[in-house]
């Protein structure tokens, strides 16, 4: 049995070659070996051999939840090897298993976050004067989210000069890896969920609803070597392909 955190540097934050050479050493969280069956003959037919492992971590490491990301991967696996006599090849089979942390006892009180988007609230625009007028209001029920519960909230398109093409929720992970030259921070998309399509009715509240996908999300992690954080973007695409994005950092936990 083995548990590993794989860290990889993005080629964007450091150079291609550095990324290749400087790849960070994997962090082993857990590793143990047991013999499930003594040497001997296994009779023909189906044989089931029971086994169990205690989950003892290596040294003072912590068992993190299973997480599949781009630059950070936390993976647990079981490998079974069967050594055989000289003439036959050894057999081996790998299997991943998933680790969920014990839920934390603490209850999180949801604190709604309101937002309003108008042309004036936007940063990072080149020509503010060319922007059409619009007013979008809304709220997220919480930014401190329980991972097993959906992200909820609502958006209201109060008015807009230009018809809306689509409103989407973009779930983004922010992975930070520490390495010799400091650290690398990368944001990548996990999933994109459309919540409105076409020119929606003005003044109607459109629900925000997103289920956190399994495997690709885990409770927000902060360790000395790496960090896994999540953010959600409310993306509004106008008919003339203007992209309006409102970013909300999230804190995920398991309750």
């Amino acid at each position, binding site marked *: 049995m083995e548990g590993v955190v794989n860290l990889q540097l993005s080629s*964007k934050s450091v150079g291609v070659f550095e990324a290749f050479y400087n790849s960070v050493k994997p962090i082993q969280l857990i590793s143990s070996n047991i013999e499930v069956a003594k040497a001997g003959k296994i009779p023909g037919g189906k044989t089931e051999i029971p086994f169990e492992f205690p989950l003892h971590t290596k040294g003072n490491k912590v068992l993190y939840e299973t997480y599949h990301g*781009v630059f950070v991967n936390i993976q647990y696996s079981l490998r079974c090897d069967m050594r055989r006599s000289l003439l036959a090849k050894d057999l081996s089979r790998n299997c991943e298993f998933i680790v969920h942390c014990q839920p934390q006892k603490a209850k999180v009180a949801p604190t709604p976050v309101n937002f309003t988007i108008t042309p004036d609230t936007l940063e990072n625009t080149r020509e503010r004067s060319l922007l059409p007028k619009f007013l979008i209001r809304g709220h997220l029920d919480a930014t401190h989210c329980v991972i097993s519960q*959906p992200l909820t909230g609502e958006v209201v398109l109060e008015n807009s000069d230009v*018809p*809306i093409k689509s*409103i989407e929720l*973009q779930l*983004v992970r922010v992975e930070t890896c520490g390495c010799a030259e400091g650290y690398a921070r*990368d*944001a*990548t*998309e*996990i*999933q*994109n*969920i*459309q*919540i*409105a*399509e*076409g*020119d*929606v*009715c003005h003044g*109607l*509240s*459109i*629900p925000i*609803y*997103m*289920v956190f*996908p*399994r495997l*690709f999300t885990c409770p927000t992690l902060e360790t000395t070597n790496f960090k896994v954080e999540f953010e959600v973007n409310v993306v509004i*695409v106008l008919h003339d*392909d203007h*992209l309006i994005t409102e970013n909300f950092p999230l804190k995920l936990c398991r309750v």
Partner: protein
Amino acid sequence: MAAVQWRSRGRNYEAELQRCRPEVALVEFGDYHPLKPIMVTDTKTRHGARKGSTSSSSSSSSSVPPDPLSSMLDGTDPLSMFAAASASETPAISRSASAGDLGRKRKEKEEEAVGADFEPWSSKRGEILARFTTTEKLSINLFMGSDRGKAPSPGSSAVSEKVRTRLEELDDLEEGSQRELLNLSQQDYANRIEELNQSLKEAWASDQKVKALKIVIQCSKLLSDTSVIQFYPSKFVLITDILDTFGQLVYDRIWSMCSDPRPLPDSFTVDDVNDTAKETCLNWFFKIASIRELLPRLYVEAAILKCNRFLNKSGIQETLPRLTAMIKGIGDPLVAAYTRAYLCRVGVEVAPHLKDSLNQNFFDLLGTFRQIGGESVRKQLALQRVEAPEYLTLYSPAISWILQCIAYRAPEPLLTEMMERCKKLGNNALLLNSVMRAFRPEFVADRATDFIGMIKDCDEAGFPKHLLFGSLGRSLACADPPESERLTILNEAWKVITKVRSPRDYVNCAEIWVEFTCRHFTKREVNTILADIIKHMTPDRAFEDAYSQLQSVIRKILTYFHDFSVLFSMERFLPFLDMFQKDSVRVEVCRSIMEIFIKHQLDLTRDPVILNAMLHICKTMHDSVNALTLEDERRSLALLIIGFIRMVSFGRDFEQQLSFCVEARATFCNLEPVLVQLIHTVNQLAMETRRVMRGSHSRKTAAFVRACAAYSFITIPSLSSIFSRLSLYLLSGQVALANQCLSQADAFLKAAVSILPEVPRSISVEGKLRSSESFLLDFTNNFLAMLLVVPDHPEHGVLYLVRGLLNMVQDYTWEDNSDAKVRVYVSALPLLAAMGQETYVYSVPKVDSNETLYGGDPKFLSEINKLCETLIGQILDHLKVLGRDEGTRRQGALAFSLFGVLLAHGDLRNNKLSQLAVNLWNLSHKHGHCEPRVSVRTLEFVKHQAQQPDMSHLSDTVQRLTLQSRT
């Protein structure tokens, strides 16, 4: 063989009859007797609360003591028990039952499930497909294998959405899985969708769950495409079929996963579901939750809504409102409306008790109503060149469905509230239309005047008013508005309807209102409406495109007007019929009128109005018959016409009746069964005349019955079926004889004999070729029986007809190897024996048979005996031939029947005859083919006969008849 001398036994028919009569026993009153009326005591349980039971009480009280059958049943007979049960059942089924105190007990049950009175989606389906069609070219755009939005793509967010989509499409192209099918006709499109449905099932069966899901997602994505908008409702129907299939597949799969040891009960709870099944189910929901686009996500989640039952109790309850809210995110109002319709459909199916989300759906729909007139919709319509009224009608299936779900068993206040909300939206015609269609007809009927007011206030531009009146009419056809308002309603409605320009729209609307008119008004109003329809439909032969509606008008009128004198006195009815100018349709209409006529015209009629009209209708039907008409078709037409002819009676005006028959014969000459019926009618007429005259005709009536006979005589030859000709000749001959038309009777019988040789050896009976032998035998026997009373023709020889018949029988080419000829001979013997009697066994009143003509003349008798001897000679010859061949069984049977004849009719005092009888007996027993039981009984009979006075000679014969043991 020496000729056998025949002597007939003298018979005293009176005495024989007396002997045969059983002794009369008086039955004491009150004794058990099987025919005594069975008394049914009325024990219908009358439950106080069950009012409005429509079963008529079946009580019959009589003072007769209870009979054993009913007393055994504790006084409740099973039939009336059923009646009582069904009487209490009916109100639950009928919608109109006052639900108040009736269904309170059932109410809880009803709320759980959707009852039979809920019009299911499947019935709407076909209607929508037929209604929303297009001739434009369609396209299907499928990105199979594109995982957009499904698997999280590791691409960086920095790459813009657009670029990434492009890249993905490129990938897809490489896989060769992107398909864009252009220029599809509507039928092609439906076929493609069906193909997809099939490939979904295949993929599922071959365990390619991901592929199956992809198909479903791609299909539901098609629903966001509103190009060729006229086709959208049909597209929705086609694609939701796929979704339904998918939902069912997923549900069944999870179901089978947890029914491992034994199948789950229907009412399973979450606890019955095992973890694997739960995990699989959850997995589906996670997968679906990550579908990128809104519309497929909504549709697919709705499709598997039912699977929530596996996960938790309140799943459906929580999901429905969420999905309802999510629909708000759909920008296109038409797409949103149909998504709501689908959600409601699934909701009603899975959780009929959850009404709130239905209502919420409707209110949301009302909330987004302003979008319909919005900028983007208008742009789209302009682009597609679709008119606003046509666009609005596209909504009606969706809205009607949602309203139907809401209105189903909804309390009155809710409906009123809905109506108020609609009013607030400025009497939106589209809504109004759906409200009228979806709400209970009673509800609409009670407020008919209000509705008319609202319809009038509606905006003319949006939604055509005739459709509104059509919907109103449909409700009023099922439920009655208050009596005082009816005329105003009709007037108001018709004022608008008559102004509709397009004949198609007009007739659609008018057809609906005919029902209301027929229900509540008299022929005057209906006539006016018919006149109006004729006026609208005649220009430019508009009726040609509206046959089905016009037919339905006729049908509706016929349902309410069963009195044909009233019906035909409507001036416009026949002109209305003239509008059906296509032959097949016209015949169809005539047929339906005839069917109603036969069903509901109970009294005979001579009303000239009815007769003229019906003759006209029947003639139309008759004239449609041609060489290509199918046999069944002919038969059914003939039956209908016969039904009409039987209803015609001029009472005692026999001559007019006859002239009617003459006319009918000329009119319906192509349908044989009708001719046969006419001959029967005329024969009946002759007998009726005889009855009226008490058997003795005056000069006038004698001439009349001769005319009747003449009618039959010239009609019969035109029939092609030989056996109907034969039997009609015989029958008409009997009638003629009964009416003392001797020469006519003679002519009939002669004609019958003369066509005997024409009888084919085989005839087709119900499509199969069968030998005609048995029919012919039946006929000759019948004929022989008749011949007894026919007096000989003075100009011809003795027994002219009998000889004629026997000659024909002899010359007839019988089937090879058949005894039929000899059997005729055997059965001719009793006739000849009967003819030799002093008094005949039966006679026709006022007709002198041969008994009186010859008065037992010895010449006559010897003539008879000679004939008998020839016959017996022939029979014996035949027996001999049979003995030579392998026909011993037939020989035995024939010999036995001849023995029977001898015994019954021959004078066995004559030694030769008695010897012959004994020989025949022995012959029939020689090969042991005789049924011993029959032999024993025959012997017993002979012994019994021997005890009768002047039959003692038989006892000698009995001595010589020996029974053979089976061996």
